[in-house]
């Protein structure tokens, strides 16, 4: 099994009304010093077996087209392959 996490966030120059609303609420509820909040999405994808090269390439492609909208969003992909012996992490 491989676990792939794709984090998708709005590009920094794009307005994030959700983040703004959260920032306001955090302040009102007593958390001081909040300079900025951005809200993003996270996809946790479980894949069967070991990831082959093709799957990795496909994942990368879909992260940048299906899972995120390149016009307004950035993404990062991190892959965690858990084998019996433990896990390794890598990010693109």
């Amino acid at each position, binding site marked *: 099994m491989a676990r792939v996490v794709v984090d998708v966030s709005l590009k920094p120059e794009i307005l994030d009304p959700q983040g703004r*609303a959260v920032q306001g609420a955090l302040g009102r509820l007593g958390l001081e010093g909040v300079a900025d909040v951005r*809200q993003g999405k996270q996809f946790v994808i479980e894949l069967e077996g070991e990831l082959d090269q093709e799957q990795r390439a496909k994942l990368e492609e879909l992260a940048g087209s299906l899972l995120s909208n390149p016009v307004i969003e950035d993404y990062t992909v991190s892959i965690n392959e858990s084998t019996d012996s433990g896990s390794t992490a890598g990010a693109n």
Partner: protein
Amino acid sequence: MSARIGVVTFPGTLDDIDAARAVRIGGAEPVNLWHADEDLAGIDAVILPGGFSYGDYLRCGAISRFAPLMTRVIERAHEGMPVLGICNGFQILCESHLLPGALARNDGLHFVCRDQWLRVENSNTAWTTAYSPDSEILVPLKNGEGRFVADDYTLDQLEGEGRVVFRYLRGNPNGSYRDIAGICNENGNVVGLMPHPEHAVEDLTGPSLDGVGLITSVIENYVAQESFA
């Protein structure tokens, strides 16, 4: 004296004028309340109307729950004041833990606006005594995050205690567990539902007049209490 029913406006509340209209049509006096107020202005009951308070950013109802006025609403709810949450109001009641469970994204992933049949499963709550048991009503439904979810224990408890107040009929619009459209607290004074009875109070604009009963119920109970007092 007619019952005074508060209607709370949060930033982003949309159906407050509708709720106030329904209160008026039902025969009570609507009292506008502002989320930042701390005073409930001598009301006998309160409605948290629908809309997108704080844009429903973060999570529906999550931010409104912390409004100053909500602290008072929660106190009074525990003392038995009738509280009705419609749609976003229901979400706020769940976020406030006045009602169990939560409202999640519709299983169809789309906002759904349609006329919806419901069965009134409990006609003993503060807001449903005007309905005969098991009556079927038609009211508009409109939400994107209206899927009622809770763990099995909670669901069984709600069912066992007769706290499922409204159930979807002829098609579950959003994947709500056990077709639940509305529930109440143990005392039956706090009721929340996703569909919009306040949009079913005039022939001209709604699919039925079935929504008026919620208001007349609370008025009946108020008058009953007054006459004991």
